[in-house]
C-alpha cells in the first residue's frame, strides 16, 4: 500500500468514524437547559419554543459530533435539563452516573432525544448536580484512565427564575453563587450563562458574574446553539463570546 496515496477517503459522515478516547486529556462540558413550562408556552418565529429548540438541536448535533472528531475530540458532554420531570440527565444512559458509559459522552457521540417542556425551574438543583457530576467524573478519569482533566465548563441556558421543585421561588441561588465563586477560584470552573427573554438577569449575573452572563434579546435558538458551540471551544474567553452574542461579528 502506498502510504502517500492519502486523504483520499475522507468523505464519510463524521459519525461513521469510530471515536478513540486514548488522548492524554479530557475536558468536561456540562450543558444545562431550562425546559420548564414556559418553553412550551412561548413562541419562537411562530413555533412553540421547545419544538423550535428540538428542531435546532437536530441541526446542531451533527456539527457537534463533527467537531468531536477534531477540535472537540477531548470533550465529554453531560446534558442536564431542569423543568419537566424535575432535574434530569438527558445525555449518555440518562442516569446521574460519572462512571464510563454513564451520563458523559464524547462530543463525537453526543445524541439527545427530543426534549419535553413542563414543570417548574429547579435551576439551583440542576447546577448542583452538574458540579457533583463533573467532580466525580474528574476523579474517575484521572484515577482510572490516567488522563488529565482541566477545570470543567458549565453552560447554562434559562428563560426564567429559579424555583423549587414545586414552582415556588427560591433564593437558594445566593448560596449557589458563593459556591460557584469557590469553584471558579479553586476548581478552575468556567460558567457561561445565556439568558433568553423572561430570564431573571439578577440571578444569572450572580451565578455567572457580569462577564460570563450573556442576555439575548430574542429567542433565536439557532444562534443560541451556535454560541454554545463557541463557548465550548477550548481557549475562548468571555469577550470573544460577547463579540458574537451581540451581532457585532461583522461590525
Amino acid at each position, binding site marked *: 500500500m502506498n502510504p502517500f496515496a492519502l486523504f483520499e477517503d475522507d468523505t464519510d459522515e463524521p459519525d461513521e468514524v469510530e471515536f478513540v478516547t486514548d488522548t*492524554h486529556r479530557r475536558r468536561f462540558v456540562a450543558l444545562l437547559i431550562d425546559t420548564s413550562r414556559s418553553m412550551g408556552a412561548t413562541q419562537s418565529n411562530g413555533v412553540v419554543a421547545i419544538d423550535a429548540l428540538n428542531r435546532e438541536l437536530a441541526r446542531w448535533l451533527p456539527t457537534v459530533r463533527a467537531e468531536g472528531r477534531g477540535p472537540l475530540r477531548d470533550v465529554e458532554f453531560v446534558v442536564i435539563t431542569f423543568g419537566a420531570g424535575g432535574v434530569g440527565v438527558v445525555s449518555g444512559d440518562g442516569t446521574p452516573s460519572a462512571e464510563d458509559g454513564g451520563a458523559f459522552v464524547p462530543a463525537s457521540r453526543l445524541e439527545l432525544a427530543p426534549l419535553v417542556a413542563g414543570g417548574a425551574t429547579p435551576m439551583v438543583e440542576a447546577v448542583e448536580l452538574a458540579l457533583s457530576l463533573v467532580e466525580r467524573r474528574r476523579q474517575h478519569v*484521572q484515577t482510572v484512565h490516567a488522563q488529565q482533566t482541566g477545570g470543567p465548563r458549565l453552560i447554562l441556558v434559562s428563560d426564567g427564575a429559579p424555583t423549587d421543585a414545586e414552582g415556588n421561588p427560591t433564593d437558594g441561588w445566593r448560596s449557589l453563587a458563593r459556591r460557584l465563586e469557590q469553584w471558579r477560584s479553586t476548581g478552575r470552573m468556567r460558567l457561561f450563562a445565556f439568558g433568553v427573554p423572561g430570564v431573571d438577569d439578577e440571578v444569572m449575573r450572580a451565578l455567572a458574574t457580569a462577564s460570563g452572563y450573556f442576555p439575548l434579546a430574542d429567542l433565536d435558538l439557532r444562534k443560541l446553539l451556535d454560541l454554545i458551540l463557541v463557548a465550548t471551544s*477550548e481557549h475562548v474567553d468571555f469577550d470573544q463570546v460577547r463579540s458574537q452574542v451581540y451581532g457585532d461579528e461583522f461590525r
Partner: protein
Amino acid sequence: MSLDVWLIAPDGRRSAATLGAPVGSAGSQGRVFGLRDRPDTVVKVLHRADRVHLADRLRIMLADPAGWAGGSGQPLVAWPSAAVHRRDDGRLLGYAAPRLAHPRFVPLPSLFNPAVRARMLPGATWSWWLTVAEELARVVHVVHQRGHVVGDLAPANVFVSASGGVCLIDADGWQLRDPVTGVDLTCPFSRPEYTAPEHLAGPSRSREPASDHWALAVLVAQLTCLGFHPFGGVPRETAGPVEEVDNVRLRRCRLLGADVRVPAAAVPPEALPAVLRRRLGDALDAGYAAPAARPGPQSWAAALAYARDSLAPCPAVATHVYPREARNCPWCRMAEAGAPDPFPGGQR
C-alpha cells in the same frame, strides 16, 4: 451569510465579493468563510475584540512581497492576499487567504485521532511523523529568517498534507516585524500548553525566537508520540484538576523521566532515538530557564532527518518502523502491553 465585501489587494485594487458559508469550526480567534464564486479563497473574519492593530498587521503582511511557498510550490503559510472590508460602510473585518486545497491539507489535530488516522493515512508509518516534524521545523526556520515569531505555535494552527508537508495558518496572530521600521507587533495570545515558561506568567510582551524553540520542541515531542503531549500525565499526588501547563510549571515532563501516570496508549520515551531525546532534554530541561539552550529549527530538522534515515523495519509488522538503535520494536511492545497498535493493519 451573504455579506458583501471588498477585497483590497496589496496593490490597492478592489474587487467585490460576497461571503459564503462558514468553513471549519467556530474557532476562538475568528471565523473563516468561503467566498461565493471564488472557491480558491477564504476569508477570516476576526472577532471584534481581536481587531486591535489589525490594520497595522495587514499592512505589514500585505507588504511582504515574497511568497510563502516551498520548493515544489506548496504553501508554507496561509498568508493574507487581501484586506477584507464591508462594502456598505468600509469597515475592516479581516483578510482573505488562499484556500488550502492542492495538495490537500487537513488540520493536524484531526490526525491525532487514531481512528481518523487509520482511515486517512492507511499504511503510514512512524517515518511520516518524523517527516511532518522536520517540515514543521523548516517552516519555523523560514518564519524566523523573516524576523517574525509564530508565538501561538500549536497543532490547531498547523495543517499537514499527505506527503508530510506543513502549512501554518493564522499568521495574523504572529509577532510580526515591520520591515520598514524594524518594530515588532507583539503576539496577542498563545496556548499555555505550548507557551515557553518565560511567557507563562507575564502579559503579552515581545517574544524572542527562543520562545518558538520551546513550542517547537513540545510539538516535535507530540508529533513523534502520535499526539501525546510531553507534559501530559497525572502526577500521583494530584488532588484536583491537572493540565499540561501545571506540569510545565513544575517541570514534570514524562519524556524526561517525570513520575506521572499516563494511559496505556502513551508512546513510551524509549521509543524515541537518543538523538531526539538529547534535544528534548536540551530544550525542555536545560532550556527551561535558559532559552538560549533550546535547539533551533535547523538543529531539529537535522536531527529528525537523521532519525528518519536511521529506521529499521519490524520483522513482524510491515507498518512498524523504529530507531535502528532499539533492540526490538516499541510498537509491538506497546501492543503486547495492551495498548492499541499505533500503526495497525501491517501484519505480515
